[in-house]
């Protein structure tokens, strides 16, 4: 079988092993005289495998050209113990030497002969008509037909010029099949490319700065979904958040998370006058959770990958629409059911949610996922810091936070007791949080406590993924105030 080994070795050189070898092989396919040489060697190799026993009897039948071909192209030829002359037989019919190289191994096969060649050449050749043989050429070129059919095609190629030409062309095409390269684009490339473009030609209709985090985060999540198969789409995900100061969770799938993002993004769509992705489905309540639960329930089957396209179209539409309504739409408000956010904050909130859930998804399928760019992370933290005073006041009313101190002393816009929130890392910064009233101004002179946290850790806290008691925060000062702020931050989270 060393004839087959030689064939195999040649074959690998001829196409799919290693990039270096590929360069050389292309040449052979391009230049006819090389192809000729190759086919001789391969033809001999083929016969060696099938009719090794006949070689000595019929070996003399090979002409000088064939012998040279076997010697130079078929590596196994001279070392073949069963073929000491180094020239293989032409088998039963020396006139039907295939002009075309024989089937080649694909990348997965190293050193093993092609399956078709292991089967004995049939004693009774298959007789097929031209039309049938022609139709087989593609399968033949891919080494995807039976041994009988292969032999019949190759016999035919010796006598039919048209088929031989096509066979050569198709065999050459097989050499062009390559595994697609992994297309994990650097997510930062998008921002760099777009910024580069916008520098060269400033846009007449820019994307508002407060919408760029949403634009970037939806693009990142979409790229993550790119290569997901069914297993990934249906991987279980546990959504986690804080409700009434208790860790809460809800089980769904990757596709379910996307349906959740789409139905909540729909709140912004509705505020902008776009179509509601809920369609005719009535929401349980006009809240993120109410919409999500209704959407999940409304379909008879669990959400599938088909949710990706409408989610992506809606996110593109949102970015586009806020670009047009631009300055004025900053005054629009988005109703979340039990609270309201100005449009530009709602877009930041949706960017934040998109990132948090992308993390959930990435974790579920064991993919790495990076935090947003520092500039965007900073805006997200800023949103949380800005809403904290109002949340503190609301919690105080419900008795969830300690009573205000010296309430009557704080006039609107005046300084009040303040907590310094120091966020470390890229995208960090310092925020002064007024503790007694949302109307008060944070003031360094009235600082009663200082909390230091990493930016991503703070976002995990605000997403309800880290319990406030366990948040890795450096703390100094009024413990009660610190506790109130950390719990208020966790209470920002929702489904």
């Amino acid at each position, binding site marked *: 079988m060393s004839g087959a080994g030689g064939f195999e070795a040649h074959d690998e050189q001829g196409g799919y092993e290693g990039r270096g070898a590929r*360069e050389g092989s*292309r*040449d052979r396919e*391009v230049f006819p005289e090389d192809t000729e040489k190759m086919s001789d060697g391969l033809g001999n190799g083929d016969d060696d495998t099938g009719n090794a026993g006949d070689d000595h009897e019929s070996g003399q039948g090979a002409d000088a050209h064939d012998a040279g071909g076997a010697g130079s192209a078929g590596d196994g030829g001279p070392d073949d113990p069963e073929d000491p002359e180094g020239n293989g037989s032409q088998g039963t019919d020396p006139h039907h030497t295939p002009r075309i190289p024989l089937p080649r191994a*694909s*990348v*997965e*096969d190293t050193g093993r002969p092609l399956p078709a060649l292991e089967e004995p050449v049939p004693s009774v050749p298959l007789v097929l008509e031209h039309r049938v043989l022609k*139709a*087989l*050429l*593609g*399968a033949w*070129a*891919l080494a*995807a*037909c*039976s041994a009988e059919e292969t032999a019949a095609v190759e016999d035919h190629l010796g006598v039919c010029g048209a088929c031989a030409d096509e066979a050569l*062309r*198709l065999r*050459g*095409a*097989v050499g*062009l*099949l*390559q*595994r*697609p*390269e992994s*297309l994990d*684009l*650097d997510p930062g*490339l*998008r921002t*760099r*490319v*777009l910024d*580069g*473009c*916008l520098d*060269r*030609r*400033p*846009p*007449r*209709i*820019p*994307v508002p700065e407060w919408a760029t985090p949403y*634009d970037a985060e939806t*693009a990142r999540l*979409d790229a993550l979904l*790119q290569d997901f198969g069914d297993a990934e789409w249906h991987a279980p995900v546990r959504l986690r958040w804080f409700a009434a100061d208790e860790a809460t969770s809800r089980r769904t799938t990757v596709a379910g998370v996307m349906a959740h993002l789409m139905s909540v993004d729909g709140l912004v769509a509705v505020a902008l006058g776009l179509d509601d992705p809920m369609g005719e489905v009535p929401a349980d309540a006009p809240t993120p959770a109410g919409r999500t639960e209704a959407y999940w329930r409304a379909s008879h089957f669990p959400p599938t990958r088909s949710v*990706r*396209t409408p989610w*992506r179209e809606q996110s*593109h539409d949102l*970015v*586009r629409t806020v*670009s047009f309504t631009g300055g004025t739409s900053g005054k629009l408000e988005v109703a979340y059911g039990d609270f309201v956010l100005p449009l530009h904050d709602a877009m930041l909130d949706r960017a934040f949610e998109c990132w948090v859930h992308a993390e959930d998804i990435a974790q579920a399928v064991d993919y790495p996922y990076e935090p947003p760019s520092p500039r965007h992370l900073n805006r997200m933290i800023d949103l949380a810091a800005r809403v904290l005073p109002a949340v503190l006041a609301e919690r105080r009313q419900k008795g969830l936070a300690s009573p205000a101190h010296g309430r009557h002393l704080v006039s609107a816009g005046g300084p009040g007791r303040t907590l310094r929130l120091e966020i470390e890392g890229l995208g960090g910064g310092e925020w002064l949080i007024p503790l007694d009233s949302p109307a008060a101004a944070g003031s360094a002179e009235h600082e009663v406590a200082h909390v230091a946290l990493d930016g991503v850790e703070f976002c995990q806290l605000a997403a309800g993924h880290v319990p406030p008691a366990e948040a890795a925060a450096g703390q100094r000062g009024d413990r009660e105030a610190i506790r109130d702020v950390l719990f208020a931050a966790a209470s920002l989270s929702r489904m």
Partner: protein
Amino acid sequence: MAKKDAPPRWDRKMQQRLARGEAAALGELYDRFASLVHGLAHRVLGDERAADGITREVFVHVWEHPEAYDPKQGPLRSWVAGLTHRLAVQRLRATETAALTQDTEGSTEELERKVRHASVAARADYIVQSMPTPLRAALELAYFQRRDYRQAAADLSITEDEARRRLRLGLQLLSTAHDTGAPGAPPGYGGAA
């Protein structure tokens, strides 16, 4: 997100939006074509950073000259692929020529050969990506999964005749990657693809 058979309406609208200077349109253009552009550039140049550079050049060009695309000549996707091909091959030729002047080992012939190979490989990639899904699926089974055509027919729930037809047609399409057309208009990125 590669969407097959995007209606030409999308292409025309995209062109109008780019011409109007809508930054959001540029983002959508990137989201649709970035992996195509980067993949082709990478196939030609074999280098991540060089492919990043070509990606930037391609989008800058489209953003600055959206009117250069003529919807009558074919889909935007083909035009973007052709542009990528041209720029990447240009870059390959430039870097190889620079290497040639420093290194006496190589020859102009080798350079041309290298350029031609890279060019054909990138075209082949594009053809495979753009061919009808049934053809691609059949080739995938026969080549990468090593199924014979009868097994492929069973896998795809089609007749053996149809499996043979798809394999042959798929390879016929792919073989056009070797064709060389008029200079400046890389073949293989035609409207049919």
